[in-house]
């Protein structure tokens, strides 16, 4: 049972890891994108709809395993990234308030996703779930060890890879340095010759795209191809996870597994109030906020320019 518990925790955790890595990239550029829940819904819907269209074109029996996985991933990323473009257009180009824009995008995204998913038949995309959840073929031979490390679907490994790459880019590359500078102090970055607008647009687009994959991961991997109207809850958890991991994607890998475990704990502990347990991830986030605030170490603070729009000639 304990192995099953950890397995499920990791599976759910990676959904959250997509969301939190995406939001961390966005926030490092100074954009507080509260549209993540809506973006994850849209990501999920675009993935499912593209899968259904592909199936409709070639017929279910003829679906290519690789294409059936690749097409929804690309569509999911692009659909979600498009919402990132809307967000950036509103906040960077039109200088709208970031909180308001984000919340509006969440409402909008949930609605769009629910509409899109009703345009296609569930059978046309849910079959692909088995391609998504298939682990390594040798996993079964390795017993509990194989189950814990090699039996996950492709999305789980993708999430970890993206988090590690992001962490590397943040800390070891010039692009990462520039991105962090844009989020910390856009005026400084601008004076240093960094294109603040481009960095904010791109970071928000890429971050949103990655978060959108989380929605797809949730539907295809966790729900085995079923659509449930709770994907936005994963979005809110992801935003909490960003704070919990103090804006570090590498920490996010561990944090997301913990969040996943806390979220599913109620299924494994009988006789407790489920709603109460589901609250735990948010409680630990508040605890982290309290401890980081008390310790007051600047490296653990949110990017200093988070939530603030930048306009060069403002006086």
């Amino acid at each position, binding site marked *: 049972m304990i192995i099953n518990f950890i397995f499920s925790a990791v599976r759910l955790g990676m959904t959250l890891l997509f969301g939190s890595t995406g939001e961390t990239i966005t926030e490092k550029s100074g954009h507080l994108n509260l549209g993540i829940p809506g973006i994850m819904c849209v990501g999920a819907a675009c993935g499912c709809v593209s899968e259904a269209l592909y199936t409709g074109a070639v017929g279910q029996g003829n679906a290519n395993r690789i294409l059936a996985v690749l097409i929804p991933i690309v569509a999911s990323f692009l659909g979600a990234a498009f919402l990132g473009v809307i967000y950036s257009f509103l906040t960077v180009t039109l200088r709208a308030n970031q909180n308001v824009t984000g919340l509006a995008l969440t409402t909008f995204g949930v609605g769009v996703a629910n509409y899109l998913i009703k345009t296609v038949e569930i059978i046309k995309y849910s079959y692909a779930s088995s391609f998504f959840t298939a682990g390594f073929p040798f996993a079964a031979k390795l017993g509990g060890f194989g189950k814990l490390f090699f039996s996950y679907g492709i999305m789980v490994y993708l999430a970890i890879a993206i988090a590690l790459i992001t962490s590397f880019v943040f800390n070891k590359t010039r692009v990462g340095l520039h991105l962090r500078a844009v989020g910390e*102090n856009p005026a400084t970055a601008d004076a240093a010759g960094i294109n603040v607008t481009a960095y904010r647009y791109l970071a928000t687009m890429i971050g949103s795209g990655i978060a959108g994959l989380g929605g797809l991961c949730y539907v295809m991997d966790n729900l085995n191809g079923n659509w449930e109207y709770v994907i936005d809850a994963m979005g809110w958890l992801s935003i909490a996870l960003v704070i919990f991991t103090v804006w570090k994607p590498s920490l996010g890998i561990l944090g997301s597994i913990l969040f996943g475990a806390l979220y599913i704990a109620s299924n494994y502990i009988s006789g407790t109030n489920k709603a109460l347990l589901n609250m735990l991830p948010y409680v630990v986030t508040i605890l982290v906020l309290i401890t980081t605030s008390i310790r007051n170490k600047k490296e653990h603070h949110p990017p200093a320019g988070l939530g603030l729009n930048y306009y060069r000639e403002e006086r």
Partner: protein
Amino acid sequence: MEKTVALELRHLTKTFGSVTANKNVDLTVYRGEILAILGENGSGKTTLMNMISGLYYPDSGHILIGGEEVVIGSPKDAFRYKIGMVHQHFKLVDVFSAAENITLGMKDGKFNLKEAKKKISETASRYGFLLDPDKRVYQMSVSEKQTVEIVKVLYRGAEILILDEPTAVLTPQETEKLFDVLRRMRDDGKSIIIITHKLHEVLALTDRVAVLRKGEGVGTVNTAETNEAELTELMVGKKVSLNIERSEPKNCVDRLCVSHLTLTDREGRKILSDISFTARSGEILGIAGIAGSGQRELLETVAGLQKPDAGAISYLDPTTGETVNLLGKTPVQIRDLGVRLSFVPEDRLGMGLVGNMNIIDNMMLRSYRKGRSAFLNRKDPKNLAERIIESLEIVTPNAVTPVRRLSGGNVQKVLVGREIASSPTVLMVAYPVRGLDINSSYTIYNLLNRQKESGVSILFVGEDLDVLIGLCDRILVINSGRVTGIVDGRNAEKGEIGLLMTMTESRRNPAEEGREKQ
């Protein structure tokens, strides 16, 4: 020696909305010289420099570098033409190390911080800077941050360096060190443009002075052939006496007694230790010290905004003759005791006024408690606002313009005007002329003097020692939260105060100590 032109500006014009910041400005900068750009606040010095460094784009006019016309559309372009600017408000990322800040935005070759650090240390030692490339900016003192800024532009190979009021935050000793470094750069063939208000620095450091007045160039003079009086005249357009009037204090009685005041901040650092002084009615008590020595916290503690750990603050009521204890009281409690205490904080648009509110509403911040009606009385504040606008000659379209839109000097007049209007018996002002031009500064000095003559006890926190010596009757010098001396304003020496500001118990070199301290 033949002088070669490094940079030439022809007829540069820049407007912001209806305000013309620069109009037809011409300027020539040679290689191997230090040029001062002198002008009152709002005369367009910074705007002009921002156009050279690519932050603003000129509406019309030409910029020539090495004789060829160039277009500088962004800071990146400026770097390409080897122009680097050190801004007045440092453009540094707090959580980054010095090396990360310096390499920020550079795109040459492979990203290699180790290599960069070596090059940074080389650049720093070449001009005599001290810099630890791994130190994070938020742990640095102001002068260290400035060093990072200067090394940053040098690292990019800048040949033309622009420094916007570089000495505003430095101690006299740090200023001297900076000047040595700048002279070394000049001898190295670089062109240095320095924006400043301080005439004695212009005379001590520069080769030529270009003067701007109301956005227009009014002439360039050789430093060796000019003097303070001439420069002031060029700057303001008419002769302004450099001497601040100071009347003899009359009927001095003790008004505010502070004894053994001690304050620690949330991190447990001692901000004030054992501060004692007495402020008397009818005199101006100056408070001098390096920025961040506890001046702000001292005033805030007296005003009831900070809770001290120990000590006593007592106020002697002039009408009843009673002694009132102010320690540990909130500002409202202090007011309810009948103590008329006014505070002009250094952060005008943060603590003093609300930028998005208009002048009338800002007047009401002081009077909203008056009256019994559930509705606000808008008439009295309106009259007060109009009276202040007229008597202090505040330049504003009307009384309902958001304060944020006014210039620095006018914002300060609104704030000081409001505080004086409540006829205080103790008036505390922190850096009241910071960022103000000479004329506005004198308006403020005169206001303070008039208050002094009417028997108000004034606490004046200042940074310019000349002003402190010229204006104050007594000067209290504090150094890292301790009183290091009280000197008489009439016969004080600048050097003496400067030493008191930087002196510590250990007998180390005061210049070095000041650098480490803050």
